[in-house]
């Protein structure tokens, strides 16, 4: 090795050492800053939803800080978040969580985007007894492992489409229905499937098609041909944005007539924008909608949040952003009730959370999942060429009547 190379290596190692010593001087609470950590997908396949999550976090941090911050022990503190890009990779996410905790000394964590990444991080936060409030991991398996430091503000995945089956049964005069379903083979979608199986059992419905879609899914023609041949009462599809877009494309092209179509990820897929009228009547599960009447003092209500978010980031907030903002409100509330920065006291305070945010009521069940907030269903409805998502269930917040059955393609323009 020549001299210059040696010199270069020395220089680099010196630089790294300095940098690590600087970062590790961040503690849980620095001066008047409460430091939170989050590994988040800024690149890779989850990057668009990762950014929605980050925007939601940032929006709430700014709002809470500008409205007096967090009051603990008579002193006012401000939130600050250290972000690392996990590249949408679970292994990387777990490493980064370790790094946030061990090197950066973070004592409180915010969740990443997606169930898969949350699953990767949860064992780490659990090991170091770090309370984590997450807003984007809905998989049921997160809440059955007995984690004590994991709190999720969102409803678990198995609740996503249960309501849809209830609606179908109601429309069928209380009798069981025939269900055709196609789910991607990933943790989240399979949990949605379990929810449907439960609902089917409860209502005496029969599942006549039960397809598992591959991860590389881009063609559902075979599933849809089966649907056409067997004429079910409901078709349920869950395969993230790809599943939603593929389903609508092929249902409209193959002219598959089904009285009811229920899906997930419609708004993330921008279904009504990308497919326009073809997506009309699709029923979609959502964690949140701006028209809900929940309120809090930081964001006002859903409509105000929608407006402020648009002003700040230039697009309408998907529910991924709203639930992420809510996670910060939960943390603030817990710190103030604990009136301490002791991790276990904060954890106990989180456990006892019972509050309303603009996003919905939040109260944690024994597994850490939010048990106080129902899922909502909206239906895509079009006027001319412009399509909108209208809330149709639960009835308390419904702005429109649920349209049933979907008219056959021969009658649709």
């Amino acid at each position, binding site marked *: 090795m020549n001299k210059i190379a040696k010199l270069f290596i020395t220089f680099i190692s010196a630089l790294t050492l300095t940098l690590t010593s600087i970062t590790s001087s961040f503690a849980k609470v620095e001066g008047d800053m409460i430091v939170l950590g989050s590994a988040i997908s800024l*690149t*890779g*396949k*989850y*990057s*668009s*939803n990762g950014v929605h999550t980050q925007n939601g976090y940032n929006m709430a941090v700014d709002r809470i800080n500008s409205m007096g911050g967090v009051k603990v022990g008579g002193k006012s503190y401000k939130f600050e978040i250290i972000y690392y890009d996990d590249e949408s990779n679970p292994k990387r996410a777990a490493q980064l969580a370790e790094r946030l905790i061990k090197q950066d000394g973070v004592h409180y964590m915010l969740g990443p985007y997606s169930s898969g990444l949350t699953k990767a991080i949860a064992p780490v936060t659990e090991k170091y007894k770090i309370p984590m409030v997450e807003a984007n991991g809905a998989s049921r398996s997160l809440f059955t492992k007995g984690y004590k430091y994991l709190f999720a503000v969102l409803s678990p995945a198995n609740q996503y489409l249960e309501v849809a089956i209830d609606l179908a049964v109601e429309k069928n005069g209380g009798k069981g229905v025939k269900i055709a379903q*196609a789910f991607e*083979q990933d943790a989240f979608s399979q949990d949605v499937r379990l929810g449907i199986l439960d609902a089917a059992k409860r209502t005496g419905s029969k599942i006549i098609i039960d*397809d*598992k*879609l*591959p991860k*590389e899914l*881009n*063609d559902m*023609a*075979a*599933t849809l*041909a*089966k649907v*056409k*041949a*067997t004429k079910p009462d409901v078709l349920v599809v869950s395969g*993230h*944005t*790809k599943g939603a*877009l*593929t389903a609508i*494309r*092929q249902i409209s*092209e*193959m*002219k598959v007539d089904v009285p009811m179509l229920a899906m997930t990820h419609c708004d993330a*897929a*921008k279904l009504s924008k*990308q*497919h*326009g009228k073809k997506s009309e009547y699709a029923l979609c599960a959502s964690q949140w909608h701006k028209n809900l009447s929940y309120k809090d003092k930081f964001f006002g209500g859903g409509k105000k949040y929608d407006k402020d978010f648009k002003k700040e980031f230039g697009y309408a907030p998907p529910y991924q952003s709203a639930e992420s903002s809510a996670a910060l409100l939960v943390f603030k509330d817990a710190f103030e009730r604990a009136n301490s920065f002791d991790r276990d006291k904060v954890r106990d305070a989180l456990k006892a959370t019972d509050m309303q945010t603009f996003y919905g009521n939040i109260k944690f069940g024994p597994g850490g999942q939010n048990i106080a907030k129902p899922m909502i269903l909206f239906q895509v409805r079009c006027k001319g060429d412009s399509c909108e998502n209208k809330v149709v269930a639960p009835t308390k917040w419904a702005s429109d009547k649920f349209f049933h059955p979907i008219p056959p393609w021969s009658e649709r323009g």
Partner: protein
Amino acid sequence: MDFLIFKAPMLMVQASLDGILLGILFALIAYGMALQWGVMNIINIAQGDLVILGGYIAYTMYLAGIHPAWGVIVSPILMYFVGWGLYKLVINKVVDRDLFISILATFGIAIVFQQLMNFIFGADVVVAQSEYGTTMLFDNSVTLPNSKIFSAFVSLAYAVALVIYMKKSKLGRAIRATAQNARAAKILGVDTEKVYAATFGINAALCGIAGALISITLTLHPYVGLPYTVRSFMIVIVAGLGNLPAVAISGMGLGLFEEFADYILGTEFRIGAVFMLLVFILVYRRFKLSKKREYLK
């Protein structure tokens, strides 16, 4: 397990037609792969990502208000230059090395392309709308999206044009000569460097066409390139290099196989079945080869 497909004959027709139309599209991608594999002895892992990039070109046109079907003309032209540039930048450094190096290099290219597309076009799944409507057969019991029929015809037209071009044109002859024996071609005055660049460009152009067709028939996402690479690899393995009719037939065969596997084994085994088939074919080929060797002894 219920075999719905055997109870409803119309499903059989539907599955066959779906499979064949999709298979023709795969065959186009596979032909590009076979071409540059044969000429340059490079297995291009980035094949699928070139396809997706081609799709994004058509999608960009669609966003700009141009009908995405024009993508089948614009996309190959742009992609030719992308391929040509890739050759000059990376591939020419690995073209004479062993297969492993070229696999590694193209794998790297694939990752770079995925991230670039993610960066430029975002990680959202997107579709372009052709509004071509649907053809209904047998009293609406078999439905064929016109976009799929369109894509099969375009693929066939380009394939035929390419075959004629390879047979008649000077460059086509040079490419074929280089494929047969690069050294001999060089001695006889063929500028193999140029031939390689053109071959890689033509391959990228074929991917561009396929991508534009995929944007109107299926969905686009920066990370869905790999299944297209695997499928074309598979088709080439079955068909052999430099045999277009075989590539077309094996493409359609694969499409059919996938559709029927979906009905009989279940959707979850659709891609798995393709991999199983690949293993069987590789083992079978080896078996045949070893027999041949014994015979030669």
